[in-house]
């Protein structure tokens, strides 16, 4: 999905107020930051790891535990479902 298609979907699905707020937010960004964000949005379909590619490794702390989890530690043992997101 190209950036233009993504923007069209936003316009179609967001309320007028949410869309206006997004435009105000991106319009007020420092040019460098705005460019980085737009590049990220444009590249996320083409550069995100593809099916069949090695999944990038990570080593992250677990909430409410001193344990850290390394994705590659599951290799050869179990598939892993990753759910990326935030509360907001």
């Amino acid at each position, binding site marked *: 999905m190209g950036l233009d298609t993504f923007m069209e979907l936003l316009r179609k699905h967001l309320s007028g107020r949410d869309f206006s707020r997004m435009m105000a937010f991106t319009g007020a960004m420092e040019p460098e930051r705005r460019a980085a964000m737009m590049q990220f949005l444009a590249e996320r379909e083409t550069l995100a790891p593809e099916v069949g590619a090695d999944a990038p490794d990570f080593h992250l702390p677990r909430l409410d535990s001193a344990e850290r989890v390394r994705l590659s530690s599951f290799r050869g043992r179990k*598939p892993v479902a*990753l759910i990326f*997101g935030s509360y907001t």
Partner: protein
Amino acid sequence: MFRAQAGHLEELRRRFGSEVEFFVVYIREAHPTDEWQVESNEREGVMFAQPKTLEERSGIAQACSLDLKLSIPTLIDDMENSTDLKFYALPDRLYLVGRDGRVAYRGGPGPFGFVAAELERAIEEYLDAAKAESVAK
């Protein structure tokens, strides 16, 4: 979309948890109050500024986990957003990584590509194929 589909994702973990490991990877806020606020957050009282420290991010992740009654363990991305950037995850995204360490399913970019039902089908297909392979050996 993550918040709206958390119940479905919990169902998937109940159904497949013995065969598939599940993790929430908690990344930067998609719609914090100091960036692009959205009406649904105001309606539901989910109002947080973009965290500046890992402790702040962990605090919001904790509130999220409690509010959504998540049993799926949560991992916290670092403040350089390293994992988010490697997986091009912002605002939300789903993946299935196979036993061989390769990407078996890559969901579309969020919010529109974040579809728990698609992940469900991908898990079913992956496990069916693994079973068929095991029988063939």
